[in-house]
């Protein structure tokens, strides 16, 4: 297999606070290959967005990368200066955020926003950029693209705005797109359209996508591999079908079992007792041990094994337990 587009090795993010240092991302490693969609899933506060922000260099100080390496297309990018990072963002890494209205400038026509991005990053003339802007809007499925380039963001519906944001993320032809909850603010029918669009673009152009979401259904349908995060750490990583149907980590299992499924009928939903620990009070050993039905003393004391190929971060991985 070719070299991965993005490679994160043992990444940790720290935030110093009055009450000590908290670590919202703690020793996370994963790769994304050309044309692959990697799903990053977890509940709120699991550190999934923070890991994405670390990759694009958008950590808000005092949050900073304290350990680990980020490699993009064979270049190390975690220690780049703000200026070098700015040249990278938009050109090599595209971004799609949750709320399409806040990621577009309300005072600029969308055509201008697209050409501005292209002129900043690509050595092309203005007329060429304008041509490409129309093509980009056509590619993401906006009807009447030639007229719509002159519209302002508020003239679009939510789904169309998210298409514009995707066109914007793609227009400088990046090799990696980080999509942070791209469909959470959208209705199901529009969500299906956006996911189909992301998958098509990913396949046609070989763009790698990091899809951050909390929706297991979206993960199942859209991604090739999935990384499950819990309390800033990677709990499990593997091909989506394996992880979702035969989860090895008790947390993944609990997460799957607590989602209402058609096959269960009206029976009670599985509950994971308790809640995710606060980041300033992550327990020793495995972060999941207070909520885990299988926890032993080993889980409470020794740090869990690191996630490796097809192996969950768990001393006692579940075997042969089919959830769906």
């Amino acid at each position, binding site marked *: 297999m070719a070299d991965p587009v993005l490679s994160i090795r043992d990444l940790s993010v720290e935030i110093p606070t009055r009450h000590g240092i908290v670590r919202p991302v703690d020793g996370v490693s994963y790769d994304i290959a050309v044309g692959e969609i990697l799903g990053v899933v977890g*509940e*709120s506060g699991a550190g999934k967005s923070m890991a994405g922000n670390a990759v694009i260099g958008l950590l808000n100080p005092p949050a900073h990368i304290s350990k680990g390496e980020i490699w993009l297309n064979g270049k190390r990018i975690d220690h780049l200066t703000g200026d070098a990072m700015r040249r990278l963002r938009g050109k090599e890494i595209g971004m799609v955020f949750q709320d399409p209205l806040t990621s577009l400038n309300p005072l600029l026509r969308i055509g201008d926003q697209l050409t501005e991005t292209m002129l900043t990053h690509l050595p092309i003339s203005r007329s060429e950029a304008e041509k490409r802007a129309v093509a980009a809007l056509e590619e993401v499925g906006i009807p009447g693209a030639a007229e719509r380039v002159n519209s302002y963001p508020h003239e679009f*519906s939510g*789904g*169309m705005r998210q298409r514009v944001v995707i066109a914007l993320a793609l227009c400088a032809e990046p090799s990696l797109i980080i999509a942070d909850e791209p469909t959470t603010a959208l*209705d*199901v*029918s*529009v*969500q*299906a*359209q956006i*996911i*189909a669009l992301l998958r098509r673009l990913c396949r046609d152009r070989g763009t790698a996508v990091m899809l951050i979401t*909390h*929706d*297991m*259904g*979206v993960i*199942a*349908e*859209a991604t090739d591999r999935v990384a499950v995060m819990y309390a800033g750490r990677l709990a499990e990583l593997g091909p*989506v*079908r394996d992880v*979702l*149907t035969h989860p090895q980590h008790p947390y993944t299992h*609990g*997460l*799957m079992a*607590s*989602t*209402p*499924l*058609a096959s*269960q009928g*009206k029976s*009670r*939903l*599985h*509950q*994971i007792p308790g*809640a995710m620990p606060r980041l300033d009070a992550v327990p020793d050993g495995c972060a999941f041990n207070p909520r885990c039905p299988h926890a032993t003393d080993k889980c409470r004391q020794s740090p869990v094994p690191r996630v490796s190929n097809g192996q969950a971060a768990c001393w006692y991985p579940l075997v042969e337990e089919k959830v*769906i």
Partner: protein
Amino acid sequence: MALVRVKNLSRVFDVSKPWLNRVIERRPKAFLTAVSEVDFDVEPRSTYALVGESGSGKSTIGKMLVGLLKPTSGVVEIEGIDLASETDAAKIDAIRSDIQMIFQDPYASLNPRWRVKDIIVEPVASRGGKTEGLAERLLEQVGLSVQDAGKFPHEFSGGQRQRICIARALASEPNLIVCDEPTSALDVSVQAQVLNLMSDLKDDFGLTYVLISHDLTVVRHMADRIGVLYLGRLVEEAEPEDLFNNPKHPYTQMLLAAAPQMDGFGREVQPPEGEIPDPINPPSGCAFHPRCPIAQDICRKKRPDMRQLNGIRVACHMAE
């Protein structure tokens, strides 16, 4: 007898620009029909779910059920009494305490300056009822501890806050609780806790729920009967088994096909065409016809009536 009867319910909002703008720009008044001629009954001790995408009018119906909004036309009867037209104040008061509501955002629906105890007993205290020990009892029933009574809302997580909202809704011993997206703001594992709690309380107290949600998995798990809304109109109503296995209305079919499935690995779905039309100028005839794969001439001209098809109600000319 049905606990809730909704007959021919409509609600129109005036969304016109201010008077001076209308004069200068020579624009007529603009009206948005959020709910249009909706009929349904809710049986006692059942869960009736309203599903639909944003702008389908589900929350507007919820607000009209609890009396937060007045219907433009049509009737909402609860236990046989129409709150909008009833003149006997005592009767209205009795019904009012029988209806409670749980809102979507537990961060916005609790007063940050009130202690949990005061929040929970308010529905009773405001009517001059006895509140001694009530908050503590309810807190235990929703899975929190007695010590939590003296705390403030910011000391709780989202799931715990939603439990407080549920405790508050239970305080006046209601029959009917309207739940507007009760778990949308919560994570899956917390959602499971809240949904299980809601099911338990329903059995313990003999409650009736009207559950408003856009999440089909939640609706399927909780509901005894489901009404599907599109652009303010009820397009199909059926029991969950029928609705999910054999949807009759093309919109329901589209919605179910588009919903992501947990076992849909690499599923290639043909995503639905188009988007919800502008509710200020809804399409003629059947509101779904511009996106409908089987639309005929009659669909463009005549709005379909609600028809009965073996226990399923569907508003479509073509369904059979």
